[in-house]
């Protein structure tokens, strides 16, 4: 520890910290453009100048390590004068286009110019011109505004692992760009917009839409993958305009995947904003009364064991609990949340959670990925693995489709039989795992949605047990889900009850009435022609087209909802805007219809529902926090590890950008598919 004095305040700080960090520890704010705590230090903007006793010249505090006894001044006349000088140079080539710049109002340069800028410019020569390269459908470039802080270059190289950006040319001609015009091939490219301290990189879909001070900001949780990234929803009036990441070091740090960030324009399109009823083969608009009556009559006329419900990927826990309890009171055991048809032992929480936790990845020293592409299924989590790899002494192996995961992996095999090769020790990576102190494995949820899913589950657990992954203080067995609703659904047991039917059995004519709660990822063609389908959801996607009754629900931005991420972390999102038209929050619809049927659920408010939830399932008592499970002395899940087949794993998604009803309705995501998967876009047309 070094003891330093900042403006007369004594602070103790770890050796190797920078002067800037010491100043922050003392509560002094240092202006900066290029410095970012999650990126390497560049030291090229010179805005963070401070004075240090016995040093003749001002020092860039971001790159200067502290020394014991250092006396630092952050606010002397000399410091202010130096920063004013830096600011004047930065503004020489910066255009005066703040009134038409999307960064206006949330621009670091604008803010610092208030403190350190001159009232007028002394520069009379021509300003630098710059080409406006095309970086794809998400990031809009205005390179005349660039101040060459190189944050975007460092982010894409270090965090995203896609080193496509560089600073070409030199001096005044320096250009930040890709040199060859191309769309950025990262799933995290939206973060460049947040990182850019000026308006050089702004959001293309959000261009000229709103000013930051017009927006109503609501904290929420992302549901487009199972990471549960913390987000802030910015809305104006009844419209969600953008989604930004919120800081949470345990989950997403401060990053957000492009799908989660840019899909919001899908929330305005293809919405179900009123109830619909199928009459004579055609859907017609109906009133809530009519659809309630239709549903009640149908259900009353049917036997309870011929009723079935399937929960989708984006649904909140409250709605699923309400649906489950309604079905239980009707006497039906036919419930399933695994619309992908996965069949595996979910009797213990540890069997289906990401037990190591996302932050825990940083402790691991070896990793086996089985049947998953974390870069597409959970880009933020993949960035965490890359962060671990960058720190060194980390070996990763992959079983499944080979991908560029932004860190090197040893490809062990394409099918689950490769797990056997590790168990037998016939593959050299087994030695690496044996030598590792904290090895972990990631089992993709997609790998479980196969006929031999239970066997793969058991084989992966056996691998974990054999290679020291299950200890008192370390749980290295992880299931990576790709559906935000799945963990919560498994937690509340949204699964077939005694004698109940699974998704496949329900689809294959096992039920007469099928209630789809936002379930869009199943094969609607497989639903029997005689099955009466009730679709409750927010988008007119595949399942709504098949439905006989449509109950318009709320999207994740339009309701207070609880979601459990793949780690088992219970998080709450808040209502940012009201659902459109006649659409209502899903649990309310279920509460109302249950009363209509004479089986009224016993909660009238969300608070009562949540209290009931926490009481019935203790895991929900703790919100936001996460207790890591110990891995020692656990019984193995059911399934025969030897029964795995040699059929190669297949990717869960054919592309990253369109995977759910919201992103499928989003024009921005469609543009991304066109840019990154031209073959798919062509096939869709």
């Amino acid at each position, binding site marked *: 520890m070094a003891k330093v004095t900042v403006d007369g305040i004594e602070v103790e700080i770890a050796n190797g910290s920078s002067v800037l960090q010491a100043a922050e520890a003392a509560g002094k704010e240092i202006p900066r453009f290029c410095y970012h705590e999650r990126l390497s230090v560049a030291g090229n903007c010179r805005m963070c100048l401070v004075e240090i006793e016995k040093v003749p010249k001002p020092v860039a505090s971001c790159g200067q390590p502290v020394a014991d006894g250092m006396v630092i001044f952050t606010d002397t006349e000399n410091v202010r004068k130096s920063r004013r000088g830096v600011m004047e140079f930065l503004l020489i080539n910066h255009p005066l286009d703040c009134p038409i710049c999307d960064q206006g109002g949330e621009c670091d340069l604008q803010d610092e110019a208030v403190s350190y800028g001159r009232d007028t410019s002394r520069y009379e020569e021509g300003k630098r011109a710059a080409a406006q390269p095309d970086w794809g459908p998400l990031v809009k470039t205005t390179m005349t505004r660039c101040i060459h802080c190189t944050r975007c270059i460092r982010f894409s190289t270090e965090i995203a692992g896609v*080193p*496509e950006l*560089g600073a070409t*040319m030199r001096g005044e001609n320096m250009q930040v760009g890709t*040199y060859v015009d191309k769309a950025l091939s990262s799933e995290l490219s939206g973060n460049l917009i947040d990182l850019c301290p000026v308006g050089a990189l702004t959001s293309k879909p959000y261009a000229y839409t709103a000013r930051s001070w017009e927006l109503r900001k609501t904290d929420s949780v992302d549901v487009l993958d199972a990471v549960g990234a913390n987000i802030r929803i910015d809305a104006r009036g009844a419209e969600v305009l953008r989604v930004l990441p919120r800081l949470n070091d345990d989950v997403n740090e401060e990053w957000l995947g492009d799908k989660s960030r840019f899909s919001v324009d899908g929330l305005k399109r293809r919405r179900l904003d009123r109830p619909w009823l199928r009459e004579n083969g055609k859907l017609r608009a109906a009133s809530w009364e009519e659809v309630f009556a239709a549903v009640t009559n149908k259900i009353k006329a049917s036997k309870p064991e011929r009723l079935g419900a399937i929960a989708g990927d984006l649904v909140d826990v409250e709605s699923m609990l309400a649906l489950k309890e309604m079905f239980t009171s009707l006497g039906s055991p036919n419930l399933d949340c695994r619309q992908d048809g996965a069949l595996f032992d979910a009797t213990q929480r540890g069997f289906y959670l990401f037990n190591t936790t996302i932050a825990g990845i940083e402790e691991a020293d070896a990793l086996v990925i089985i049947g998953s592409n974390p870069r597409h299924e959970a880009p933020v989590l993949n960035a965490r693995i890359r962060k671990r790899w960058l720190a060194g002494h980390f070996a990763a192996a992959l079983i499944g489709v080979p991908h560029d995961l932004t860190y090197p992996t040893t490809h062990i095999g394409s099918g689950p039989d490769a797990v056997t090769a590790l168990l037998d020790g016939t593959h050299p990576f087994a030695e690496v795992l044996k030598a590792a102190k904290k090895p972990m494995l990631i089992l993709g949820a997609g790998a479980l949605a196969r006929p031999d899913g239970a066997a793969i589950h058991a084989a992966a657990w056996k691998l974990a047990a054999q290679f020291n992954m299950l200890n008192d203080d370390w749980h290295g067995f992880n299931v990576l889900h790709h559906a935000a609703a799945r963990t919560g659904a498994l937690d509340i047991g949204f699964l077939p009850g005694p004698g109940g039917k699974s998704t496949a059995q329900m689809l294959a004519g096992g039920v007469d009435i099928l209630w789809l709660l936002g379930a869009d990822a199943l094969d609607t063609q497989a639903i029997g022609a005689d099955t009466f389908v009730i679709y409750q959801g927010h988008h007119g996607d595949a399942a709504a087209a098949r439905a006989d009754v449509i109950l318009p629900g709320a999207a994740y931005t339009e309701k207070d909802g609880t979601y459990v991420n793949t780690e088992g972390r219970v998080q709450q999102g808040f209502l940012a805007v009201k659902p459109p038209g006649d659409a209502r929050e899903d649990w309310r619809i279920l509460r109302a219809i249950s009363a209509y049927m004479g089986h009224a659920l016993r909660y009238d408010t969300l608070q009562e529902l949540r209290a009931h939830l926490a009481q019935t399932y203790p895991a929900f008592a703790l919100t936001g926090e996460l207790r890591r499970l110990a891995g020692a002395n656990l019984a193995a899940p059911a399934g025969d590890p030897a029964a795995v087949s040699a059929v190669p794993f297949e990717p869960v998604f054919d592309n990253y950008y369109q995977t759910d009803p919201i992103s499928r309705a989003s024009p921005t995501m469609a543009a991304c598919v066109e840019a990154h998967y031209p073959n798919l876009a062509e096939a869709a047309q």
Partner: protein
Amino acid sequence: MNANIEPTDFVFDAAAEAAVAKAIARYPAGKQASAVMALLDIAQRQMERLTGTAWVPRLAMDVVAQRLGIAPARVYEIATFYTMYNTKPVGKYHLQVCTTTPCWLRGSDEVVSSCKKVTGIEGFGQTSEDGLFTMTEVECLGGCVNAPILQINDDYYEDLDAARTEALLNELKSGAPLPPAGSSIGRQASAPVTNQTALLNNTKPVE
């Protein structure tokens, strides 16, 4: 092969491969990326050998990146940063005129106007119509003692004035090979123009 378009393919030829292997071998294992500048130079010289114009096409940068296992963007950064790598085709003779203060004081403006006059080039960065000459303005070449300097391809031509520059370029234009490099007034290395002024008597150094 038309020298003025981006080639469709770039591979190091046998001569270049030998140089590449030598350059990479200079650095310890795992630090091959250090050879990037040498490899770019080898690529530029190969282009000169094969097409008559010394430049590094983007394809060649990609080949260098692949060979060294680094991101292409890192190679683009280096190739565009250093002015000695030409990212666009240049003429057979690349006239690099130094216009920094010492050369300018000693008459680099004359050299520039002579270059323009002989080659028909109107400004820096342009190539003459016959494709023989490209004129580039460069910063200090470090030959200030013999200013003004004109660097043609790899060689320095020193102590130039308008007439001698014109004579030199006309010679090149007529198809003659590059004359010996160095001072155009017969000065020995960087000795004083007014002949030797110091150490005139052969006194032995004091012991």
